[in-house]
């Protein structure tokens, strides 16, 4: 009896089908957190409200990377005469939004808030 080798296209289809299914599952489950995850998020949100936190504690290198929303415009030599910047986090964080928005957009600027960046 002749031996029929496994057809390459069948194998390819199987591989792609399984990967495709995994992909579809990912999209289907996206955004749906489990009950436990939901609870954790709500607890964290409550902590934020209680303590009045304003920033993620991702970048604890320096003051302006620790609280980017509260900081001055990023300026070189802020922490130390020899410290130009904190790399790479310094390049990941843009200056806070309020310091970079155009003044034409900002009603606050019109209302007399300090117009120049600090």
């Amino acid at each position, binding site marked *: 009896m*002749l*031996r*029929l*080798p496994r*057809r390459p296209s069948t194998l390819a289809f199987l591989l792609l089908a399984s990967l495709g299914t995994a992909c579809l599952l990912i999209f289907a489950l996206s955004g749906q957190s489990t009950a436990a995850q939901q609870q954790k998020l709500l607890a964290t949100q409550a902590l934020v409200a209680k303590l009045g936190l304003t920033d993620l504690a991702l970048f604890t290198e320096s003051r302006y990377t620790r609280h980017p929303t509260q900081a001055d415009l990023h300026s070189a030599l802020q922490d130390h005469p020899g410290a130009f910047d904190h790399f790479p986090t310094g390049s990941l964080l843009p200056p806070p939004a309020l310091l970079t928005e155009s003044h034409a957009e900002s009603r606050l600027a019109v209302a007399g808030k300090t117009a120049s960046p600090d």
Partner: protein
Amino acid sequence: MIELSNIKKAFNQGKPNEYWALNGIDLTLEAGKVTAFRGPSGSGKTTLLTLVGCLSRPTSGRVRFRGEDISGLPERFLTEIRRQSFGFIFQQLNLIKGLSALENVILPGFPTGRPRAELVASASQLFAQLKLEHRLHAKVEWLSGGEQQRVAIARALINNPQVIIADEPTANLDTALSREFMAILESFTAAGKTVLLTSHDPLVVESSAVHRVVGIRDGKLTDD
């Protein structure tokens, strides 16, 4: 079955190296017979075969196959006729390296959409006829010269064509294998197929299997 009327073929037309391979060929080929074309290199034998087998088109003149004018057909139709009615055995065999003998043989069947099982069955049958069953899955580059040629023959037959065209089929074979090839040729005609071939080899040209020898020189027919 195949009629050629005033066939001319030029290469590099209009350029300084323009070359007329065929200079007015009129020929009628009968069905079910073996016709051998004999002539020196550069005489236009191979070009003639390609024209007859729908691999290229004449610069001027007409080719009629089963009464139908095929010289002016668009590529798709030409390819379909070629696929259905012609089987080619090239001088260099032109097998695809890295693939097995089986995979090479069933390749011409792919565009037809025939199920793979059917193609493999046909191929296996051919391999049995050509005594190659044990080499079904071997890579073609590992086969001997004779085995490779038989794979090329099987490939030419997979779509069960009416016409077999072979260009210098025994050029790379020894005497024993050449005789074997001629025997296979005889089985073709027994099955009603038409065979066209070119050869320098007296073993082929003077063989009893060949019904008609056509001489060709400088793009024109000589004797018959």
